[in-house]
């Protein structure tokens, strides 16, 4: 039996959502690890892009920042933000974007800016960064979050990035370029979106968790299909590659998603 950490599980899980030859926004952290893992396994020709300006990157060490020079050498171009977020992303050329969030609602809308009231916020979070842009314009959006009841809320404290907004037709109303969220990956489960209502739906639960565990940890009505499979586990091959990619455990030794 393969043994793995939570981080390794999540990275392997996320990596399966990257297909070969796709244009992927890598960022940092888990999404980057997932994208690099995908490139080392089933998606060798995925084009890893960092919003800071790096295109087709093949970092030999894991970057800590989207602007990290580790993204530079052996990339095929190093330009700037107008290139990546404008000419590439806004023009509809990004297949997959990854985002994290502090809060998500049942339509996959995200909050990465404030906890508490906007006028006197309790906690200032990082803000949108390129998040709103990616959520607006990437063809598919993969959301990665730690699973916590306070994060799966009926009402966001602040809507930073568009998911499916108010449901069918609402992204079209604003002529958003991208297709919106496709998958939400947490440390308990994977969720997708019901094609009819565009509301979050349970897709698979991770080994060791039950459907009830998930239901106990969301504050909205989660759609649960009749058949909920168990999420695929990482292979030893995937784990070995991750340790080669991050030999110093910069990401692998971290606690959360």
């Amino acid at each position, binding site marked *: 039996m393969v043994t793995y950490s939570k981080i390794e599980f999540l990275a392997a899980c996320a990596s399966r959502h990257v297909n070969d030859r796709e244009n992927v926004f890598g960022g*940092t*952290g888990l999404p980057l690890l997932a994208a690099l893992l995908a490139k080392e396994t089933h998606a060798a020709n995925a084009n890893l892009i960092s*919003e*800071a*300006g*790096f295109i087709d990157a093949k970092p*030999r060490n894991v970057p*800590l*920042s*989207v*602007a*990290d*020079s*580790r993204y*530079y*050498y052996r990339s095929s171009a*190093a*330009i*700037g*933000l*107008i290139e990546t*977020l*404008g000419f590439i*992303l*806004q023009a509809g050329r990004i297949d997959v974007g990854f985002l994290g969030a502090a809060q998500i609602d049942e339509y996959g*809308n995200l909050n990465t*800016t404030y906890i508490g009231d*906007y006028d*006197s*916020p*309790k*906690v*200032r*979070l*990082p*803000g*949108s*960064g*390129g*998040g*709103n*842009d990616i959520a*607006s*314009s990437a063809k598919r959006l993969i959301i990665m979050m730690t699973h916590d009841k306070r994060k799966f809320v009926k009402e966001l404290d*602040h*809507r*930073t*990035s*568009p998911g499916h*907004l108010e449901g069918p037709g*609402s*992204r079209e*109303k*604003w*002529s*958003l*370029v991208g297709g919106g969220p496709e998958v939400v990956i947490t440390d308990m489960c994977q969720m997708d979106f019901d094609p009819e209502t565009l509301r979050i739906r349970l897709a698979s639960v991770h080994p060791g968790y039950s459907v009830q565990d998930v239901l106990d940890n969301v504050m909205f009505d989660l759609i649960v299909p009749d058949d909920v499979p168990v999420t695929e586990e990482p292979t030893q091959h995937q784990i070995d590659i991750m340790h080669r990619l991050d030999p110093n455990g*910069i*990401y692998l030794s971290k606690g959360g998603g």
Partner: protein
Amino acid sequence: MVPDGADLFWGGFGYQRAPIAFSHELVRQKKRNLTVHTCGSEVDLEIMAGAGVTTRFEIAFVAIEALGLANNMRRRVAEGKVEIEDYSNLAMAMRFLGGALNVPFMPIRSLMGTDMVEKSRYREKKVEVMDCPFTGEKICLVPSLQPDFSIVHVQRVDQTGNAQIDGIVGEDLEGSRCGKKLIVLAEELIDEEEIRTRPDQTKIPAMYVDHVVILPYVAHPMECHDYYDYDLEHLQMFHKMTRTEEGWQEYLENYILGVENHYAYLELVGWEHLHSLRARKPWGY
């Protein structure tokens, strides 16, 4: 040179070419009520927010990325001492592009459908969503920025101000052109002859440049492509110390107020240690 109350374009992106030395100097000169415009800066914003130099930010992002949240900013916002007008990275980059082009706005396809359009702090009109007169689609206009000063950190500059940048440019091409005055911080002075031999390598022509400052390790503890890597140890210490107000005050006293200038700061960090950060070829870090 920068008066109290001025607004600034702040260069660098993420860990790359952050004008840290300039933020130190603003703190030492006890500047107040500055407004900073940038996409995503990190340690420098923490320093300026923490020390009370900057009270307004128009930004898309503040955190130390992989290392975690921006503690000083979080405290200052909770205290009500700092106001942040939130945009996305593309929105900010386009605002700088619009400023550089001297047009009053630029159209983007982001922000719509979210609180980024609905909520604003102090701007009377933060964005404007309109119907496109050509296609009928909704499109979001973001107001251009022409701040009093642009602060940009580059690798090399000649005597007259022509600057070269290695690696990514982030939003610095637009940013360097949008400000009313441009201050360029460079790691190295090169001869004008070197510039004129390869004019297509010039990223910022001298005609935009008002002041040049030549200093080594301007970005420390962040990185400068082809020159030096980030100082992970120092960064982690910084991030850990900023978790408490006391820790931050101690850092502020030790590394910024307690040193006379940038060279004294580098002395304190240690030249041998700095030397160990120097970039290796061909990687650039």
